[in-house]
């Protein structure tokens, strides 16, 4: 079966904004989403490991990782809405069929996420009431929560890899359907890119979590004992090193082991060569900054520089992923060639509200900064 026959016609309504606008918000939103999402994705598992085998300092680190987790999860879910929204606008022809083919795992994300989120709250409540000796049942909840987050990540990797692997649709569909209607039980496990993609994201999540530990130690751990920051830097370096090595291995596996020759050629030629190279080596920058702080000591400015470097890493990653996604889809459809009917007034109103919203958030954060200054003074 020709897989292109499974791609439906264009929407008669056209894109409500130019493609560049949609994809910019998609990439920007995904970058913002990755920051908190990485911290819970790898952070909850790390916290459980540190609580279990980390000694006194490890448990301290675990507590500091878990405490802000409810807020980070709320922000991460919220930031995830934007890329999902613009994915559905611009990639609807492939997004819907892919998620329908794996509808049950896709929908189960909601159940898993709800349970995991409450799991985090249960664990954090234990930190408040029980301190260092957190009850065993709460620890068990923490482990289950960590497993759920990993499973959610696995389902996401499935959905977004299946979205571009249109060639696999006919087999998955014919195998798992009744009367031509999918049962929604397919997974993209036959895709060689799935596993390195999933593991690569986890490795990258480790590096983001390491940066979070550095920022937290310099900016928010003022109440901790003096040796805490040094220990946090050491732990961050270790976690970042594992993350960078993992990223290098899984990234190489992904690029050299699973990409078709044609895609590799495209990503290693012309201006894209620089982008691919930068994406590959960029996790080294925050790692070097963490190493520097481990050796020379940390400051708030250094922590901020490390965080900015990590944001750059994530942004490069998001941009590269977007280019690869379009290249993979190019065999089946050209997402840039859809008709456009710009909705000017709603678009302008959205941008206006976006700026006002940022202003209000800045005002609220300003109040917190003033509070902090007055409390410390």
């Amino acid at each position, binding site marked *: 079966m020709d897989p292109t026959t*499974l791609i439906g016609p264009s929407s008669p309504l056209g894109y409500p904004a130019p493609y560049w606008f949609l994809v910019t918000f998609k990439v920007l939103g995904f970058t913002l989403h990755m920051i908190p999402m990485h911290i819970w994705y790898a952070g909850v598992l790390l916290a459980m490991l540190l609580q279990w085998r980390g000694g006194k300092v490890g448990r301290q680190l675990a507590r500091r990782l878990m405490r802000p987790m409810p807020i980070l999860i709320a922000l991460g*879910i919220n930031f995830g809405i934007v890329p999902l929204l613009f994915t559905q606008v611009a990639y609807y022809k492939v997004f819907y069929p892919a998620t329908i*083919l794996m509808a049950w795992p896709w929908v189960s994300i909601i159940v898993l996420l709800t349970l995991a*989120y409450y799991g985090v709250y249960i664990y954090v409540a234990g930190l408040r009431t029980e301190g260092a000796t957190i009850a065993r049942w709460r620890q068990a909840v923490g482990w289950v929560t960590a497993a759920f987050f990993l499973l959610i990540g696995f389902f996401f990797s499935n959905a977004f890899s299946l979205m571009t692997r249109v060639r696999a649709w006919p087999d998955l569909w014919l195998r798992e359907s*009744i009367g031509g209607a999918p049962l929604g039980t397919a997974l993209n496990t036959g895709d060689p890119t799935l596993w390195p993609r999933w593991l690569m994201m986890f490795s990258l999540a480790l590096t983001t979590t390491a940066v979070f530990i550095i920022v937290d130690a310099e900016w928010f751990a003022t109440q901790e004992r003096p040796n805490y920051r040094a220990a946090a830097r050491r732990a961050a370096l270790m976690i970042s090193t594992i993350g960078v090595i993992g990223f290098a291995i899984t990234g190489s596996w992904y690029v050299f082991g699973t990409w078709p020759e044609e895609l590799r050629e495209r990503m290693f030629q012309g201006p894209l060569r620089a982008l691919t190279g930068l994406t590959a080596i960029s996790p080294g920058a925050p790692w070097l900054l963490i190493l520097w702080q481990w050796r020379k000591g940390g400051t708030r400015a250094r922590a901020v520089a490390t965080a900015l470097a990590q944001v750059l890493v994530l942004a490069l990653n998001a941009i590269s992923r977007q280019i690869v996604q379009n290249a993979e889809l190019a065999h089946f459809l050209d997402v840039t060639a859809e008709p456009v009917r710009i909705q000017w007034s709603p678009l302008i109103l959205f941008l206006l509200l976006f700026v006002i919203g940022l202003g209000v958030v800045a005002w609220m954060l300003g109040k917190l900064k003033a*509070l902090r200054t007055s409390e410390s003074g």
Partner: protein
Amino acid sequence: MHYPWWYVPFLTSPMLIAIISVLHVLVAHYAVGGGLFLAVETQYAYRHDHREYLAYLKEHAWFFILITVVYGAITGVGIWWTIGVASPLATQTLIHIFVFGWAMEYVFFVLEIVSAFIFYYFWGRLDPKTHVRIGWIYAGSAWMSLVLITGITAFMLHSGRWPEERTFWAGFLNPQFVPQVLARTGGAFLLASLYVYLHATFKAKDPALRDLIAARSARPALLGSLLIVLGGIGWYLALPESAKAALIAASTLNILVVLIFAVTIAVFFMLYLGPYRNPGWLSPGFAILFFTFGLVAITTGEYIREAVRKPYIIYNVVLGNQVYAEKVPELRRTGYLEGGTWTKAWVAHHYPQVLNNGRIDPAQLLALPEEDQVKLGEVLFLYHCNDCHAGRRGFSPVAQLIRGWTPEMVRTVVEHPEKAHFFMPPWAGTPEEAELLTKYLLRIAHPRPAGMYFGEEK
């Protein structure tokens, strides 16, 4: 038509949307009304330097965050998840019309999240004036998100001038918009008070404090009940003719409408006689009863709102079976199987002999062996009918609905479902395809129940 149809045994996939939507709205209304409650009451408690009330409000804010920020937010995202897989064409259409509506709503979501956390986590540390302002930022953002999403959901019930003008505002400012905003705002006030009562009767130990909470929360609840009734009347008056007819014709909906009005009025009088006039009456049992009534009213309201849309998902734009209303005549000429991306691929893969110059030849379909015709009938059933009907068993199962029908009756209804029941979508295929569907339905139909006596001669 453009997407694969997700087969969910027994329930049918759109029922998953209904389930998750109801689970969401029960909390979503509280997320709006509860925000207003916290802003107003915190302001009041600060002004009167009421320490005990402030302590209670802090406790309530924690409960509020646990319920709304976690469960409410995720089930909200869950609706996205489910509509995308269970109703993809309608979702695609809504997204292309209203993406900036959702994007605006997102801005308010961010404000909600940030302000909610600051409001709770910095309680007692922020000066009262700033604290209250943050509370109001939450309340205003939450209400704005209600307004924005209501414009979109109201559009589904009445697309207004959109089919002619095809602009964002023509769709958003539809006839159902204002009545539904009124009703939902009322629902938010009312439900928030019921959540407060439920929480306060268990958590506020001091009877005087409990009485204060009962009395103060009665006012927004009474106002909410009035807004629900006002919005409900506006909603009914602004309904399209088909929705009004569905409301009158369907006995279940009849009963539910009576139920929702009866419950709302009962709650109104209970609020007046109870918390408003006699705050001391409020007990855990009373609060649970109130809360249950509130849930029943909201659930019923949502069910009715969904049900009266039939046969459309988006009135006059997208039909329940994922077909653009304007495409029906074309599909009747060229064929449903030919018109659907995945149905055509399925036929081309399994029965290439029915293709003629790359198109499905309807006449060739009837030349297939009987078993294959039944199989194609099943494809037609799943893609054309399964959005509202399960097959043999489950939600509105067609095999049970046509018990004892003759082949002629089945064929007539297959070809003219919208004439048999005006709330069903029209047949969107060729006569040959109608024959295939008829054969499939007759194959799965149960026989007429035995033992029924009508006084026939023996």
